[in-house]
């Protein structure tokens, strides 16, 4: 009675790349409207590629409901931002005037930050709503996941924890990570079974070690370099420390994922385990970024060369010469190539970075005492009025 399930990912590069390009082209042709359907279709692919015990996950969201939710969100945001801007203007802060004095410039910067600050609670609200929507539209073995309403509570807590984090210069980051995940996890359900996040937030400090090491390298190296009067030493220390810091942040995210997954319990009986490796994830991200970067450099280099040589023809030939025609053609061709290159870059980043990372994570998640899952009953469907429309409008949550 202690069956174990290991996650398995079946997605392939080719089909997903094709799906991305097709949906992105449709998005272009429909002036952006298709993006809701595009996102939905890509989610359907990734969800269905994820299996446990041979049974695929299912994403039941639709593009239409996302589109309608977006409409709702955009109206509310338009009203909200209109009023905020007018209020800011009333209090003497204006975003749309050229600043004349330093005081005005400061006031204007203040107004920009105030505008962003006014949107921040909405973005946090949107973040929770987006996760809730994704949960409500996910199924495994026909049983729905779900999440309770609590987006404003989340936004308020997140604001509080982020503020604490900012005041302590990031020292309380584990507290924010843990408490916010616990807030969401404790409100999550699979069918009629509730998740629970156990563990202690202090335990996450172990995951911060590389961040601290990186900071130490930067500080010690900087001081030493300053003391010995060697800018080279300080420069190297800061460079090494910075790279270390970036990897350290990734290490922390992976560590937190493993820890938080390992300390989740479903229905008081089913437990989880995650063995995601930082090295593997870092490898995927770094290699993928380099490949895409080099490819784009080559494509844009070639395009620039073609464009420049066609311009030569244009300038040399003059307007009345036949040389002018190919240059107009070259202009259109460059524009088309540019858009295509961007599409390819987006598709590549999905299939050689995002998908492999998901694949690695899924393949390294284990479910213990899985037999208990058989006894779980269906839960009622969650309508979810805005279908993460706020997240779409505010661009929260990224590609998937």
């Amino acid at each position, binding site marked *: 009675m202690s069956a174990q399930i290991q996650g398995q990912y*079946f997605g392939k590069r080719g089909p997903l790349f094709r799906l991305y390009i097709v949906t992105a082209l449709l998005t272009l042709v429909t002036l952006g409207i298709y993006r809701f359907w595009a996102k939905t*279709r890509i989610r*359907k692919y990734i969800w269905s590629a994820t299996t446990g015990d041979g*049974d695929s996950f299912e994403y039941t969201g639709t593009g239409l409901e996302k589109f309608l939710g977006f409409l709702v969100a*955009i*109206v509310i945001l338009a009203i909200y931002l*209109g009023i905020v801007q*007018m209020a800011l203007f009333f209090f003497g802060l*204006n975003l749309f005037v050229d600043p004349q004095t330093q005081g005005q410039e400061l006031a204007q910067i203040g107004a920009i930050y105030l505008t962003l600050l006014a949107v921040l609670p909405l973005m946090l609200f949107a973040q929770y709503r987006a996760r809730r929507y994704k949960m409500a539209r996910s199924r495994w073995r026909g049983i729905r996941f779900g999440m309770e309403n609590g987006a404003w509570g989340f936004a308020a807590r997140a604001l509080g924890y982020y503020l604490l984090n900012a005041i302590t210069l990031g020292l309380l980051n584990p507290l924010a990570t843990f408490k916010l995940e616990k807030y969401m996890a404790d409100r999550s359900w699979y069918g009629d079974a509730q998740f629970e996040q156990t563990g202690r937030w202090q335990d996450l400090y172990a995951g911060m070690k590389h961040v601290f090491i990186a900071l130490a390298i930067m500080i010690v190296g900087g001081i030493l370099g300053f003391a010995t009067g060697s800018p080279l030493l300080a420069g190297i220390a800061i460079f090494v420390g910075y790279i270390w810091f970036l990897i350290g942040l990734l290490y922390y995210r992976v560590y937190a994922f493993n820890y938080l997954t390992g300390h989740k319990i479903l229905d008081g009986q089913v437990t989880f385990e995650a063995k995601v490796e930082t090295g593997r994830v870092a490898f995927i991200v770094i290699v993928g970024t380099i490949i895409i970067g080099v490819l784009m450099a080559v494509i844009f280099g070639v395009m620039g060369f073609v464009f420049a040589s066609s311009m030569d023809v244009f300038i040399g030939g003059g307007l009345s010469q036949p040389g002018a025609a190919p240059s107009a053609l070259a202009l259109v061709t460059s524009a088309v190539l540019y858009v295509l290159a961007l599409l390819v870059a987006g598709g590549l980043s999905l299939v050689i970075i995002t998908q492999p990372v998901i694949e690695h994570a899924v393949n390294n998640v284990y479910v213990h005492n899985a037999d208990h899952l058989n006894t779980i009953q269906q839960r009622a469907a969650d309508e979810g009025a805005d279908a993460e429309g706020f997240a779409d409008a505010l661009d929260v949550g990224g590609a998937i």
Partner: protein
Amino acid sequence: MQAQARFFDGESGQRLDVDLAVDTAAETLRLTHPDLPMGSQYWPLDAIRALADHARTDQLVLSLRADASLDSALIRTARLTVDDADMISILTRLCPDLRRRDVERGTGRKVVTRIGLAVGAVVLMIFVILPAMANTLATLIPIEREVAYGKTVVNQMERFLGGKRVGGLACTNPAGRAALDKMTDRLTEAGDLTYDLNIAVFDHKMVNAFAAPGGQIVIMRGLIDRAKTPDEVAAVLAHEIGHVEARDTTRNALRAAGSAGSAGLLALVLGDFAGGSAVVVVAEYTLNASYTREAEAAADVFALNMLDASETDAEALATFFDSLDGIERAMPDLPVYLSSHPETIERAEAAREFAKAQGRTSPILNDEDWAALRNICKDSPEKDTAEDG
């Protein structure tokens, strides 16, 4: 044809390995398992749907069409996963609507309604709510803040017109200033004004004058050059004072800030390639035009009364409009309130009607002062050297 498949009833997490059998005569798929109610289920082939964009090509996940469903897609919660290659090919052949996406009845109407509501709400916002708020706030805003903002606007305008520094374009010939003050005093002595006027003349050929919040008024040299009598300049000045007193520019700025907030967001999220900004620009223009018409008419009335009270010939407003009639309408630097041709004629007519009922009038400046005003931009001590064009 027989095969096994995994069945989930959509009620519990229990997995049943059912036996499948296709009955071609009855056009059904039979699912058999001892734990199923009555031992078996029959799925009509034409009601079977496969899940779309499924990642695994060696697998088919089937569901049944529903007439109404709480979930977004019109399918029931039960799922059947088929791995058997032969069964997959048979089902693909026999199920006529396997790949069909069912859409709930009335979806089209729902979409149209929602789009209509969204557009309506934004229109209501930009054309009703924000202007109403702007009206209220314009009367609440402290005068110092208005003055500070108005000065910023004037400085910005000066820079835009080519001034290299603050005050770089201002014409300060003492005799000219004195004439201008004389004109202003005569216009304003009759009534109390809320704002202290701060009137500047800019050395620019544009035939224009404008008001900014907090009593700031700027007259361009081009306007003084074109005016045939001092009364014409006075008429335009009175019109601008009307704008100042009605807080038109403050109101406009507040409204613009509000609609820029919401419209800017729309442009941002709809993306430039959805033509969002074009829509916003058109909306803003329409809105501005309708406001401007009302505000201009009110400022005209104010100006006529002011001219009357100071015993200046109100027909000057009409003759100034007439003199502009010669200028090409397409001229870009025509003042906004003069730019729509038929209305200019109408407004000139109204001024003429008003002037008929006027009592005794006298020119606002004597010839000497008028000459001084016309030379206000010559020998200005603080001005940058004029760059005429």
